[in-house]
């Protein structure tokens, strides 16, 4: 700031000629200097700066990649018995050891991951579609229809889901399809309530009214305006619905209602290992470790995602 402390001798009168007219047009004054940032990019930038959520995401991706390529990394397959090699501890030959029929635990763990992930993602996807459609209609149309539909969903929700699942598995064959179906009977209710709440809140936003005053049909407003703005809570609910479905599958498998041998899921592997837990702890350790790790990662990632989607919510 030296220029303000200059000596009086430097002082000189400013004449009008000393000023030049800045050439700023009306349109140039409206220019935005910063590079354009879409909402999704903004979310990714925030998520990237959250080390906990990124750790969760990296481990999840590792588990998914291993589920795809894991069984191919070992010469052993997941179903061949070898009664001379039962209950071996982890070694360079069998990385995770073998089970009571001499099957390679490494191959079985990643085959189990495939089944657990398939169940988790398909159940969550079906629940997502059902919940969004049902909840969207409830919340957007409202009134009497909302009351009736909401009561129906409350009735379905009041049925104990484990009981329904057991009943379904007993009536039908215990297979992957039956398990997914069992998890979808009540699983979508939560999603539909989240979407309903969002729709009720968003439908009176002025941009929805503006779209209506332009002549948009209701479905266009629902899918173009309301659902994209409800994506945050929907995605967060989804990231918590996947591990919950995986866990339910593990519970069913643990009860002996899961996929049937020789196919394996983490739940059935834990169930098999339980009887000999004290003598052969590694048989329990690997599936238990991975299912815990995956649950943890989904939760960490889901939390981080929620903060990234709605920074105002973070306290």
């Amino acid at each position, binding site marked *: 700031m030296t220029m303000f402390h200059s000596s009086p001798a430097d002082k000189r009168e400013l004449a009008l000629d000393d000023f030049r007219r800045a050439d700023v047009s*009306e*349109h*140039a004054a*409206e*220019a*935005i200097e*910063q590079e*354009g*940032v*879409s*909402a999704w990019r903004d979310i990714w930038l925030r998520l990237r700066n959250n080390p906990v959520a990124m750790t969760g995401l990296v481990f999840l991706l590792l588990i998914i990649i291993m589920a795809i390529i894991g069984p191919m990394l070992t010469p052993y397959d997941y179903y061949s018995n070898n009664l001379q090699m039962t209950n071996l501890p982890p070694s360079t030959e069998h990385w995770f050891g073998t089970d009571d029929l001499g099957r390679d635990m490494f191959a079985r763990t990643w085959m189990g991951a495939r089944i657990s992930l398939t169940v988790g993602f398909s159940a969550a996807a079906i629940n997502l579609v059902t919940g969004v459609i049902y909840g969207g209609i409830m919340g957007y149309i409202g009134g009497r229809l909302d009351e009736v539909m909401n009561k129906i969903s409350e009735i379905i929700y009041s049925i104990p889901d484990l009981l329904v699942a057991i009943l379904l598995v007993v009536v039908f064959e215990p297979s992957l399809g039956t398990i997914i179906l069992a998890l979808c009977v009540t699983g979508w209710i939560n999603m539909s309530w989240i979407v309903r709440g969002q729709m009720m809140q968003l439908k009176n*936003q*002025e*941009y929805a*009214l*503006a*779209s*209506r*005053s*332009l*002549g*948009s049909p209701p479905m*266009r407003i629902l899918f*173009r*305006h309301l659902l*994209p*703005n409800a*994506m945050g809570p929907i995605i967060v609910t989804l990231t918590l619905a996947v591990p919950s479905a995986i866990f339910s599958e593990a519970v069913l498998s643990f009860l002996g209602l899961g996929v049937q041998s020789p196919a394996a899921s983490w739940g059935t592997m834990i169930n098999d290992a339980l009887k000999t837990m004290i003598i052969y702890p590694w048989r329990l350790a690997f599936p238990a470790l991975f299912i815990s790790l995956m649950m943890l990662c989904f939760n960490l990632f889901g939390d981080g995602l929620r903060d990234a989607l709605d920074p105002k919510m973070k306290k």
Partner: protein
Amino acid sequence: MSTEPLLRINQLCKHFYMGRGQTLKAVNNISFSVDRGETLGMVGESGCGKSTAGRTILRLYEPTAGEAWYGGTNIYRLKPGQLKAFRREMQMIFQDPCASLNPRMTIMDIIGEALDIHRLADNRSARRKRVEELLYLVGLNPEHSTRYPHEFSGGQRQRIGIARALAVDPKFIICDEPISALDVSIQAQVVNLLKDLQKRLGLTYLFIAHDLSMVKHISDRVTVMYLGQIVEIADSGELYSEPLHPYTRALMSAIPVPDPDIEADKERIVLSGELPGPLNPSSGCSFRTRCPYATSVCAEREPEFQETKPGHHVACHLV
């Protein structure tokens, strides 16, 4: 030019059922007309039903009773297909420039939606050209059409809202407090833009606001609402120089004058009491509970809406 008004509202009511036998009479029996090319101001305090009236006229809310004649058509008798075509005639500019633009859409898509719905653009390049034209019209840089709403300032967003309303070439625009969420310097910018567009495009405005000096600046005629009813309609100059209804007089006395000497001597009518809840309005004149001149007749009968001078209507027993 015909003397037939562009829009004629007749005995419009909008009641909301609040449950437990209670009805909120947000808009109660209002009638007025708007001539082609004029700006009709609509003032009143918060919660008096101004915005509800505007939204009901546009049929964003279904009316409880009444008629709205636009030229020769009754807006409330339009079938869904006709209503969609009618949307091109009448548009709305919303109050909150943050909430009225979908944060997940680019400016191109926000304005382009109007073109998509009414199939006003044959292909993508025509659509882009039209959106850029509209942005230029409202004084924005057309290059910003790929930006998202949060990248703009409040005044810029409001102009995007104006561009969207103009996209379908409407003749009538309801401005629902378009400036109340903006800074004073930006308010003038937006109001001048609206006046300029009115001149260039021959628009007719219903201008809802609670800023009395701004309404005076932009309106040809002004209606004053109180608790869902219109208490006075007059030419803008006359309403401000000779307000007849006690409520209008109180409102006018509250306009601040940018001169401390005048402001110090000015007599201000301060209304006693609170705004009664619209759920259970009092008998007779709705304003009598706060009116300094109320007499017994005010409690007995509802005042009629009478014309005291040509073009000056007022609902008060004492006039």
